């Protein structure tokens, strides 16, 4: 089941009602309801893969308890190894196996050897990268002694499969989510209302802005050879808006839904396109994943507290892994590499650059705008590799942009007043969140009293453009 499907609008009120009715009985019953709902939610897509989540949960539950119970370092390490092996093994099999086989076959054919392997006919389980990383962080935290393992199997199962964030994050840490599942939850009016508002805005971002930009982006990327440079650049812009609205829209709906159940999920996006540098971009984009890599890969490798060469290597490792996490394709690896290369200057001179820019921001907003634009252009450069299916496609696309050609009449096909209007609305709302003083000024205007009309028009657009279950981009990861 996905958030933008009619089933979800029936499913959510039913689960919400049962969940809060069960509060009168016990927290345990509430967890049972959440667990059942989560399995129904996931099984709606393909019930066979529920066994994979269940198996992963069982293994991590028992292994973590054994890790905690054992005092011998070797045993603890071996148990952690079992958890890592199983989780990463599943990920490798379902997500990367065919990639390695294809790469092997390509390498052999380049060398002129006939030693080809057969690809496997496997389906990629939705959200496997997300819940695998969530369970991995749990096992590692227990091993590091940062977390006491869950003693209740149902609580742990609920933590792993909590439906709002199961298939596309935010990737929650057990230290944050598990205690909330173990404690009694109370219904809070303000939190629930903020949840509904967030869900509403997430749906607008996904359905009204993201999906529509996606239509234009697809047309341009699929037919790039017959288009001029301006249209191609517009295609990248549309994709940048699409992926942001799609993924942050999902995160907003997930966080909003969780709030209805009295559970707080971590923020995953903080207006990333307002970043003034690549390092700031990564502090604002997919925060739950970047912080995961920081805590479980970058810092254990030594982080920036080592030699300059080692720091560069650490940054590159993290970004290459991050690219590889997104998909089993060389495109994603190159995308990660680009961000790694762009990130290195900031990681080496980070504090100085930040201080300098802070001083400048004091006397000129103009420079900030230029820095924001520069970062946006660099990010868009990376998106070309993210969006294209092959490296060849990406390089041809970039080459075609670089030719500065102009094809008359094409631009009119891809600029639509509705879409442009909604992109401006989206950027405006992000700007208001970014600048609280501006938001306060808007709220003091007399026009703000008629905001219900804006809600109405937005709901109308959402209903009009609602495509029956258009998948979120990040489901494929």
């Amino acid at each position, binding site marked *: 089941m996905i958030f933008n499907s009619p089933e979800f609008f029936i499913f959510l009120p039913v689960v919400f009602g049962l969940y809060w009715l069960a509060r009168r009985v016990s927290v345990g019953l509430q967890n049972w309801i959440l667990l059942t709902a989560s399995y129904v939610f996931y099984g709606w897509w393909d019930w066979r893969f529920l066994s994979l989540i269940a198996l992963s949960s069982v293994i991590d539950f028992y292994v973590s308890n054994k890790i905690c119970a054992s005092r011998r370092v070797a045993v603890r390490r071996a148990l952690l190894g079992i958890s890592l092996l199983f989780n990463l093994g599943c990920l490798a099999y379902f997500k990367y196996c065919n990639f390695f086989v294809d790469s092997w076959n390509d390498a052999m054919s380049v060398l002129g050897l006939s030693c080809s392997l057969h690809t496997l006919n496997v389906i990629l389980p939705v959200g496997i990268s997300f819940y695998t990383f969530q369970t991995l962080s749990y096992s590692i935290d227990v091993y590091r002694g940062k977390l006491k393992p869950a003693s209740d199997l149902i609580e742990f199962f609920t933590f792993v499969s909590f439906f709002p964030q199961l298939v596309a994050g935010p990737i929650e840490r057990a230290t944050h989510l598990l205690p909330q599942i173990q404690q009694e939850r*109370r*219904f*809070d*009016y303000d939190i629930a*209302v903020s949840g509904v508002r967030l869900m509403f805005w997430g749906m607008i971002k996904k359905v009204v802005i993201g999906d529509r930009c996606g239509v234009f982006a697809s047309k341009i990327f699929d037919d790039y050879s017959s288009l001029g440079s301006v249209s191609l650049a517009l295609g990248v812009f549309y994709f940048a808006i699409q992926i942001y609205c799609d993924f942050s829209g999902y995160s907003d709906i997930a966080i909003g839904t969780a709030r209805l159940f009295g559970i707080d999920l971590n923020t995953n996006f903080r207006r990333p396109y307002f970043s003034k540098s690549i390092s700031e971009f990564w502090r604002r984009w997919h925060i739950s994943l970047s912080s995961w890599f920081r805590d479980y890969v970058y810092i254990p490798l030594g982080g920036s507290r080592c030699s300059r060469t080692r720091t560069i290597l650490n940054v590159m490792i993290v970004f290459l892994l991050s690219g590889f996490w997104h998909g089993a394709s060389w495109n994603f690896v190159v995308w990660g590499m680009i961000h790694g290369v762009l990130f290195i200057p900031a990681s080496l001179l980070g504090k100085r650059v930040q201080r300098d820019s802070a001083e400048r921001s004091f006397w000129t907003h103009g420079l900030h705008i230029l820095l924001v634009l520069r970062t946006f252009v660099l990010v868009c450069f990376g998106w070309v590799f993210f969006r294209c299916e092959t490296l060849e496609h990406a390089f041809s696309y970039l080459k075609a942009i670089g030719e500065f050609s102009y094809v008359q009449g094409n631009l009119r096909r891809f600029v639509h007043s509705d879409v442009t209007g909604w992109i401006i609305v989206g950027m405006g709302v992000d700007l208001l969140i970014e600048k609280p003083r501006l938001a306060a000024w808007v709220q003091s205007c007399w026009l703000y009293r008629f905001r*219900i009309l804006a*809600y109405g*028009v937005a709901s*109308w657009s959402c209903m009009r453009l609602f495509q*029956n279950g258009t998948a979120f981009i990040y489901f494929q990861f």
Partner: protein
Amino acid sequence: MAPRSSTSSSSFSRFGAFLLRRLAGIGLTFSLISVLACMFPRVSGRFFRQPQEYGCTTRRTLEWSQSPAPDLLFLGSSTCYLGVDPRELDLLGLSSFVLCSTSQTIGQSWRILQDIERQAKLPRYLVLDIYPELWRLRGSWTSTRDWSVNGYYEDELSYLSLLGLALSDMDPYSAVLALYYWQFRKSQPISHDRRPDTTGIYRERGFVAGREAALSKIPQKTPMVVEMKDHFQNDFKEMIEFCERRGIQLVILLPPELVRTKFKLPDFLERLPVIDGQEWPGSSEPQHFYDNRHLVESGAKVYSTWLVARLEQTLDRAIRFAR
């Protein structure tokens, strides 16, 4: 972080009131939009789907409303209204009509057939064009919206059927469109003053001649692998039963494609006569198509001539359902 607030026992009722207030506000805005749209065509065009000629549904439904019940009726998607030319089928000695619309699924064809029964225009033979790529959809809203906005209906009950179709597809906007155009058409009769279709010209009896340039080579495309969704299978079974009860001979038509979609017909269709358009020799010749599946006018002529021969054989040995 979520905002913090004290918990009170009345939180649920306050939350319920908040939702009701919001819903009432949104409902009021919707009503305001509808009223303004009835008064001002620009508002109507902006908020409701604008009538258009794409697929020529208006002309098709107008002609259908003035025609008697045909002997041979085609239901299906654009592959059918661009591919089957009833003028060529006259050789069969049967009157025929193509009552199709863009992306029309099996479920939609089934509901349209029920409405045709209400109009007392059931045919003797029914050819159902089932384009496999549509089998993977949950429902196609394009078709329902097209029928609501561009269709011409002599009686209001057709709008009611469309409302049912929208609700069964769980598509609130199509339901709103059906309701709106039901009322709108009372004051604004249907006209042809609308955005013209650049892809085809309406000929007659539902056929649209494809105007796009013919292909010169077979497109590079990975064949899609599809399975018929359960709800379509159920619709199909109901449709077969319906035809059995009314003595209508049902024939399945698989349209030709340059790159064929990979699929397997459900087992229950084995007992029905199936005409596979892929057996048409022209199905591998790009000059007959303007994209992978849509025929240009000359291609439709050749295909329809081939279809006459196949229908002649098929209708002769088609299972007689009348008991």
